[in-house]
């Protein structure tokens, strides 16, 4: 009986072959895109990295504490100060900043692409019908596969890490932007239209502001997902905390792996609370009804 269960009933399909053919075709025909893209992304990451690693640690530490204070409150600011001091004490401050640079660039790009896509999906049901399954696909395809593809297209280094993170983390930005806009009270949108507002005014003056809490929740998720890719990006030679953890795993250095993991957790808590805080703060100031 077990043999029967394992028996293949559908004819053989060489999906693997098609996929690698498609990749080959892309490599042959779209090389003129991949080259410049690699340069641009690499420059972006480098620039953000310089910003984070260049100044003395004290400056960055105080800046983070200040951000935490304004976004959340003094208690969280104290936590931030202590947590990043711990990271520094473990000797991973620079690696953390390198990873943060990767997260920031990936998340910025994901948001920059995702929000317009979400707006498009909210305004056109056809676009939504195309974009939705695409986002499902992007989110459920194991992240390692992106990394593999990204390495093929962009070679080893930080760029495939950014690209893989970007693809993996973009869906929430699209989804929550679309959801947020579609959930804006229909009558309120009608009111703007009834007074003769242009579609652009309706979007920028009514729909986007009212969808902001939802969009910010999307941004928050994008950042979290991008961060979760940091370790995987380490496999492609992106360095930073990913590199430390990969080293810990490969050499069975549990302590090193734990330190890297702890730094990731601290970075995650910081980014999560700060972005959530900005989102909620905005909504609060606007007197949500």
């Amino acid at each position, binding site marked *: 009986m077990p043999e029967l269960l394992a028996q293949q009933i559908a004819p053989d399909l060489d999906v693997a072959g098609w996929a690698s053919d498609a990749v080959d075709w892309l490599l042959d025909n779209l090389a003129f895109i991949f080259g410049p893209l690699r340069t641009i992304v690499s420059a972006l990451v480098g620039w953000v990295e310089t910003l984070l690693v260049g100044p003395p640690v004290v400056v960055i530490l105080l800046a983070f504490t200040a951000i935490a204070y304004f976004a959340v409150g003094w208690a969280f600011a104290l936590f931030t100060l202590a947590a990043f001091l711990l990271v520094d004490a473990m000797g991973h401050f620079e690696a953390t900043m390198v990873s943060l640079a990767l997260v920031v660039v990936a998340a910025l790009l994901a948001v920059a692409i995702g929000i317009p896509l979400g707006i498009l999906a909210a305004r056109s049901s056809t676009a939504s019908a195309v974009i939705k399954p695409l986002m499902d696909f992007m989110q459920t395809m194991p992240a390692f596969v992106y990394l593999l593809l990204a390495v093929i297209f962009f070679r080893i280094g930080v760029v495939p890490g950014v690209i893989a993170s970007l693809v993996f983390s973009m869906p929430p930005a699209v989804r929550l932007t679309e959801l947020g806009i579609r959930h804006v*009270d229909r*009558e*309120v949108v*009608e*009111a*703007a*239209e*009834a*007074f*003769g*507002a*242009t579609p652009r*005014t309706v979007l920028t*003056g*009514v729909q986007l*502001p*009212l969808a902001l809490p939802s969009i910010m929740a999307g941004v928050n998720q994008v950042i979290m997902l991008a961060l979760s890719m940091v370790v995987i990006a380490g496999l492609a030679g992106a360095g930073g905390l990913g590199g430390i953890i990969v080293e810990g795993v490969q050499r069975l250095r549990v302590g090193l792996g734990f330190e890297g993991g702890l730094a990731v957790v601290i970075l995650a808590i910081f980014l999560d609370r700060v972005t959530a805080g900005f989102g909620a703060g905005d909504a609060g100031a*606007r*007197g*949500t*009804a």
Partner: protein
Amino acid sequence: MASHVRAEGLTKVFGDAPKKALEAQGSGRDAAWIREQLGQTLAVDDVSFEVEAGELFVVMGLSGSGKSTVIRMLNRLVEPSAGEVWIGDERVGALDNRGLRELRQRRMSMVFQHFALFPHRTVVENAAFGLKVQGVEPDERRERAEEALETVGLAGWSEHYPSELSGGMQQRVGLARGLATQADILLMDEPFSALDPLIRREMQGLLAELQSELQRTIVFITHDLNEAMLLGDRICVLRQGRVVQIGTGAQIIASPASDYVAEFVADVDRSRVLTADIAMREPRRVFAPTASPQEVLDWLAGQEANGVYVLAEDGRVLGVARDDRLARGLGEGAREIGGLLTDDYANVPPDTLLADLSALAARNSVPIAVTDDTGKLLGVVPRARLLASLAGTEVSTGPQAAGRDPNGAGRGRQEPADA
């Protein structure tokens, strides 16, 4: 002058095959058939009406009657499947996007059921929204918005956010937003139905007051018949997307076009809607001042009445000839009733509410006289007839009913005469 807003055969089909539904509608199928056979919803079915400038026109119907769709087709928030809307001599359906925006900015504004305020803008920013869209400069915009807020009784609330206001106040902001653009047409989609009864009455009062000053052309949607009667110059009753009846409140109550309307209006406080001209009928007989007292007395005796109106040649009421005065005059040798008249009668203009007539009806020996502004007698309202009108048992109206003596049976010994 031509009508200000005119709807011609407005029809809206919701569904994926509106053409089929329109064909079926054209060949006389009704909404139920179209829904069952074609799976299309005929929400609005061939609705036509005209609204005069300065008129408050109420479109009334229960939920599902298509009233919200009708009002949204006037400014094309909903695109009509068939039919036309005219604003003055401008065909709304022919406007391009820019023209339509222009129309919405300058000529029609709208007030919504759930207020539809912008929660992220302050009260004054909300009120100024239409002006901002028009491109009015910030200072002027603010000034005009503040003015509109003052008109609706919200001075001093400018810097608050809508969420800090009560429902009634929020709708005042909605009203101010609609008034601020100075559009001459105001579309109001069930503006008061989300409010508590007391607040609703207050807002109805506010609107009536504003309207008497501003004289905008208003299309007002409601499901509340009392509200329709209270506010509407004319009412259009919708049922399942079709117009059942259009008329003044009094016309609709006095002669409902169908059982549906009759049932609908059964609960209305008729005394606050019906007017004297609906309840009045032609006097059975009037006399000239030259008539002899004997002749009038004989007639009164035959009618078991004790008074009758005496009119001048041009129809003006000169007074009432009452039996006791006539008898005394006859004894003193008077030859004409002209010198024996009393002014023992009540007269009212034709638009007097029946509620106001009730108090007068019992007082005099003759029925209440309904006169125009020159004093000419238009008709009389006997008490029994007034009571019948209030009870809704007397449906047929107008002078034709006079001969049938609808109140004869109820007339008792003390009943005032039917002049």
